[in-house]
Each structure stands twice: as structure tokens, then as C-alpha cells.
């Protein structure tokens, strides 16, 4: 899950490594205060998303488009799954072009989180989330089609 957050919020390998390290440090620091009031996955997502969205300042919001035929090295390169990987790479490319909030919502959606859980993680009410989610899905659909 942490790797997915890093892929969604960072455009290059160095930034991904930095963000991974930062999330890992924050999880380690926050672990003693985890009392099980929220689900573990909710707690994990909160820390990872908070770190990614409000944590690092160095990352720039430039778009880095990766040709579907040229896989990012970290998504794997075995020939067997190359079609899957190509699709996955174009999905990550498309998601990275969304806003920070939309990226978080789409990630949670793709991870099969309910709207209730999304509200618990993001703090945005479910009605508002539904409207925003529809817009984000539309945007993503256009982006994946165009790639």
C-alpha cells in the first residue's frame, strides 16, 4: 500500500524513495499511539496520505508522462505480464494527472474501500465524496482513453 501511495504522489524514483522513507518513519513514530480505535488499514492510509499530501514540499507537480510501451523500471519488466504492466503504467500515469484529493479518492476506490471508510480517512462527508468521485472517475476515464 505504501508503494502505491508513493507511485501515485511522486513522479520519479528519487522522490518515491524519499516519500517511502518518510511514510515509514512516520508510521514507526506513530505506532505507539495506535490504539485500535480505527481499523489498521484506515490508520495506515491516514498516515501515508497525510505524509504524501502535506508532508513533502520538494516534490513538484509537473506531469511526467511515460509512454505505455516504456515501463517505469519499478513496475517490473518480465515479458509475460507486459500487457498488464502496460495497463498498470498507463493507469498510474493517468492517476498522477489528477489533483491530490482525487488521487487519494481513486486510490481508495481501487482498493475497494467503502464511502464510509473513505470519509473516515479523508474527513470529507460521503455525499460530497460521491459527487467528487464521479467527477474524478470521468476525468480518469478520459485520461486513460487518451493514453
Amino acid at each position, binding site marked *: 500500500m505504501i*508503494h*502505491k501511495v508513493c*507511485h501515485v504522489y511522486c513522479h520519479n524514483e528519487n522522490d518515491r524513495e*524519499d516519500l*517511502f*522513507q*518518510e511514510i*515509514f*518513519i*512516520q508510521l*514507526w513514530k*506513530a505506532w505507539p*499511539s*495506535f490504539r485500535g480505535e480505527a481499523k489498521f488499514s484506515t*490508520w495506515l492510509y*491516514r*498516515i501515508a*496520505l*497525510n*505524509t504524501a*499530501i*502535506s*508532508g*513533502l*514540499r*520538494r516534490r513538484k507537480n509537473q506531469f511526467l508522462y511515460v509512454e505505455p510501451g516504456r515501463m517505469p523500471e*519499478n*513496475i*517490473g519488466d*518480465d515479458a509475460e*505480464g507486459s500487457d*498488464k*504492466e502496460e*495497463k*498498470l503504467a498507463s*493507469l498510474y500515469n493517468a492517476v498522477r494527472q489528477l*489533483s*491530490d*484529493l482525487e488521487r*487519494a479518492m481513486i486510490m481508495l*476506490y*481501487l*482498493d*475497494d474501500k467503502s464511502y464510509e471508510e473513505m470519509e*473516515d*480517512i*479523508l*474527513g*470529507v462527508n460521503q*455525499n*460530497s465524496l460521491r*459527487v*467528487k468521485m464521479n467527477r474524478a*472517475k470521468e476525468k*480518469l*476515464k478520459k485520461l*486513460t482513453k487518451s493514453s
Partner: protein
Amino acid sequence: MELDQFKELWQQDLPGKGHDLEILKSLLDKKSSSPVAKMKRNLNIELWVILLSYGSMILFYFIAFDGRMSEISWFMLFIGGLFILYYLRKLKLLREMECLACQVKSNLEKQIQSLEKYIRFYLIAGTALVPFSVLFFWWLFRMKLRHIPDQSIFYTNPLNPWWKAALAWVLLTAGLTFLLFHLNRWYVRKLYGRHVDKLKSVLREMEGED
């Protein structure tokens, strides 16, 4: 491809993304690069710089000139005391600045609120230092250096009535305060401006009416 069809693909682990325990352990030895952690480190560096530089100057003015300039040491001790309050206030704001285990929206609100307080405090404290210092040097010049600059515009003399001298001090204070205020404002904007704007834009999107 429909988004739902991506779900299965998404939920598979990214290939080659295992981390062995040693690498994870080594990550914990590194310093956090979060803005709050960096600000805490900078604040501690600032504390040490002030303690060392003020400490040595305070000692110097107590000992040198047979203690005739000890007023400077007392003034610096006073400013140093104020700096400790300034340090504690900033540390408190930094500690309140983030709650990573909170909901993303409330963490953003908290961070923006504390960061704006932090910036305001920095600006006020940095600017207030000028009138304080000018007031002190005005007093010091009057008490200790009365005999030197008879021709100075900052002193009352037959050619320079008291109101002219007072006006010179007021203009000097206003000019320096104005300059330092804008310099500080430019500096905090350069340091935190983009970060605050980014946080506000995410929060606006979260609060957006639908």
C-alpha cells in the same frame, strides 16, 4: 478499459517491491524530511547560534572596558530571555502543527492554522526587535557617549533642537522597522509561501460545494 476492470490489476502488489528487514531498519536511522521536522531542526540550530553568540557577547561586555559597558550585556540578557519565550512558543506551534493519524482534512486545517500563526509570530517578533534595539541604543548613546558626536543630528545641541533629534530617531526607527518587516515578509513567503498555498488549495477542494 473501465475503471472497475482496473481494480483487480491495482490490487496486485507492485512487482519487485519487497523490502528486507535490514533496509527497513536502515530507513529508520535517517532523518525525517517532513517540513515540520526540518523546521524543528532549524529552530534548534537557531537556539544554539543565539546561545553561543549572545553568551559570548554578554560575557565580553561584562568583562571588557572594566564593566563600563555592562548595560549592553544586560540588554542582551533581556533580549535573550525574550528569545527563550520566542523559542518555546515556536516549539509549541510546531508540536501542534501535525497530527498524521488524524483525518486528512483535519490535519490540513491544523497545519494551515498553526503554520499561519507561526509565520505571523515570526514576522511580529522579527520586526519588534528593531524598535527595541533602537530604543536601547538611543538610551545608551545618551548615557554613555554624550561627549562624542556634538554635531550629530541624533543629539540635541545649539544647532539641533530637541524635536529635530527626536524626529531623527523616530525616522531611523520607522525606516529600519519598515525595511526589516518587508525583508522578513519576503523571507517567510519564500520559505513557506508555496507550501501554505498548496495546503490551502487541497483544503479548498475538500471543502468545495457540490
